[in-house]
């Protein structure tokens, strides 16, 4: 109320400044702990910077980036990143879609099923990773025992120690971890489709399949696109599960780009080269991020 007693000019100014003043704590802190470090990373990527030689911080321009493009491991990691996304996302999406369609039906224990399905989402990734290492164990793992008993394999397979299977074993783990997210998002989309559409379609004699194709899919297409974008960005970035399960090995069999950047910095302490890998990877992701932001931006105002 006291603003009303003040001169009109000051009150108007205060009203103009207030929104920014309210924003400033969050904005300033994120500038300090997110945007400033990112600029620092870009800056480091232009330097020779190895942590055990802290005095040596020489500007080398794009040398690290050129080196990365000529680095065999960079291309191996990039290939794995592509396989990793191309398999994990569709697998999560299909399983999530199936789960959501089932959860959208009426059955007595639906609330229980809906609550239990999101458990993988709540578990720490370290726990998930170690749990699956134990499942894949060559000597005592339940997966080998299960497949042996069914007669599907003749001898135990060291899933994570074999370069041919390691990446796919991790992809299965990631699928398990991420499909509940899709299920929940898609379920929300399904529930926003008016029931009357289906009733009208049934009256016209449309089959379940046609109803799915002409009503359900268009109805959830927005959610599907958003979920796929979000999840692709997330899966591409995620390195904790791989790092715990194989550490990138055997050899380079499970290296992805962000993991390579992390290992370069953590193990070799080469922060210059590691940063340049991180920056390269970020630039590749940027296209997806822009598409997502465009979609999200439409929802504002």
């Amino acid at each position: 109320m006291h603003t009303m007693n003040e001169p009109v000019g000051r009150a108007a100014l205060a009203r103009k400044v207030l929104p920014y003043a309210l924003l400033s704590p969050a904005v300033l802190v994120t500038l300090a702990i997110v945007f400033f470090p990112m600029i620092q990373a870009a800056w480091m990527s232009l330097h020779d910077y190895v942590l055990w030689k802290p005095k040596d911080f020489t500007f080398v321009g794009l040398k690290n980036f050129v080196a990365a493009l000529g680095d065999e491991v960079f291309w191996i990691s990039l290939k794995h990143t592509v396989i990793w996304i191309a398999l994990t996302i569709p697998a999560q999406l299909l399983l999530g879609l199936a789960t959501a369609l089932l959860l959208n039906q009426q059955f007595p224990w639906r609330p229980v099923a809906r609550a239990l399905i999101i458990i993988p989402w709540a578990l720490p990734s370290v726990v998930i990773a170690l749990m699956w290492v134990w499942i894949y164990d060559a000597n005592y793992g339940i997966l080998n025992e299960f497949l042996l008993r069914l007669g599907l394999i003749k001898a135990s397979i060291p899933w994570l120690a074999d370069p041919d299977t390691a990446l796919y074993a991790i992809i299965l783990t990631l699928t398990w971890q991420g499909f509940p997210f899709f299920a929940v998002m898609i379920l929300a989309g399904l529930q926003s489709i008016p029931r009357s559409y289906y009733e009208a379609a049934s009256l016209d004699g449309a089959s379940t399949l046609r109803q799915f194709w002409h009503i359900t899919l268009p109805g959830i297409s927005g959610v599907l696109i958003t979920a796929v974008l979000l999840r692709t960005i997330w899966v591409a970035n995620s390195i904790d599960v791989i790092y715990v399960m194989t550490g990138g090995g055997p050899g380079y069999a499970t290296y992805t780009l962000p993991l390579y950047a992390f290992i370069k910095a953590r193990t070799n302490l080469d922060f210059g080269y590691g940063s340049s890998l991180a920056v390269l990877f970020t630039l590749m992701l940027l296209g997806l991020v822009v598409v997502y932001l465009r979609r999200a931006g439409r929802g504002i105002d």
Partner: protein
Amino acid sequence: MIGRKSLPKRILTVDLPMLVILAFTLGPYLWMLLTSLTSEDRLFTEGPSLVGATVENYVRLFATVGFLTNLVHSFIIAAGTVVVGLTLSVTAAYSFSRFSFRGKRYLLLQFLIINMFPVVLLILPLFVMMRVLGILDTHLALIIANATVAIPFSVWMMTSYMNGIPKSLDEAAMTDGCSRLGALWRVVLPLCTPGIIATGIYIFITAWNEYLYALTLGGRNVRPITVAIQTLIGEYEVEWGLLTSGGIIGAMPATLLFLIVQKRLISGLTQGAVKG
């Protein structure tokens, strides 16, 4: 898609497939639980089984490995992140939800974009920065690192909760003599409490489960459970009984909290997605 199905048909097309998916979802977790209840010497001779179930792994976890200290570290970090994340974002969310001003769109998108950058891109400079500041391996370091995720998330969620509260309520409060901040404090915040609690709990879960920052920026003096569980491998030559019981205990708080708030949380999380 709707319409009444006969019972046998429903069981065949709904209940059964759902059970298969649930078995896939819960199987690995239950297998971990079963392993943790089997004593170490039986594990490698007979395999995990409920026969002769024992809690000896859990006892050992707390008695010899000192798991309690790790739980305390995790708690301090997660609770600290909740406090930082919530307090910094309340006024920002209020500003986004109640005012229109130049650059609002970009500022709001700015908060959305943060969580899309690769963790690696942040982890390297944060390590260097914290080394210079001399705060590596402290609770503060990990709270700051987790806040990079918590603040944007919290701003985004609280803005959506506050948008759900009619502006006319603030205006009524201000006609009754409240200042802007008074209206926020006395009217909007109390109405948002359920949303704030859900957001806080989600931040707690994420910080509790976080691993890479904890490993890189902490790990020696400050060793939260995620890092502690991982080190059980090295120090004790993969004792799976011990490891799985660590996994069960470490995952417990977050899992329970998640089950409690899932409904409210999911409606908040999916709101933006459904609109888009």
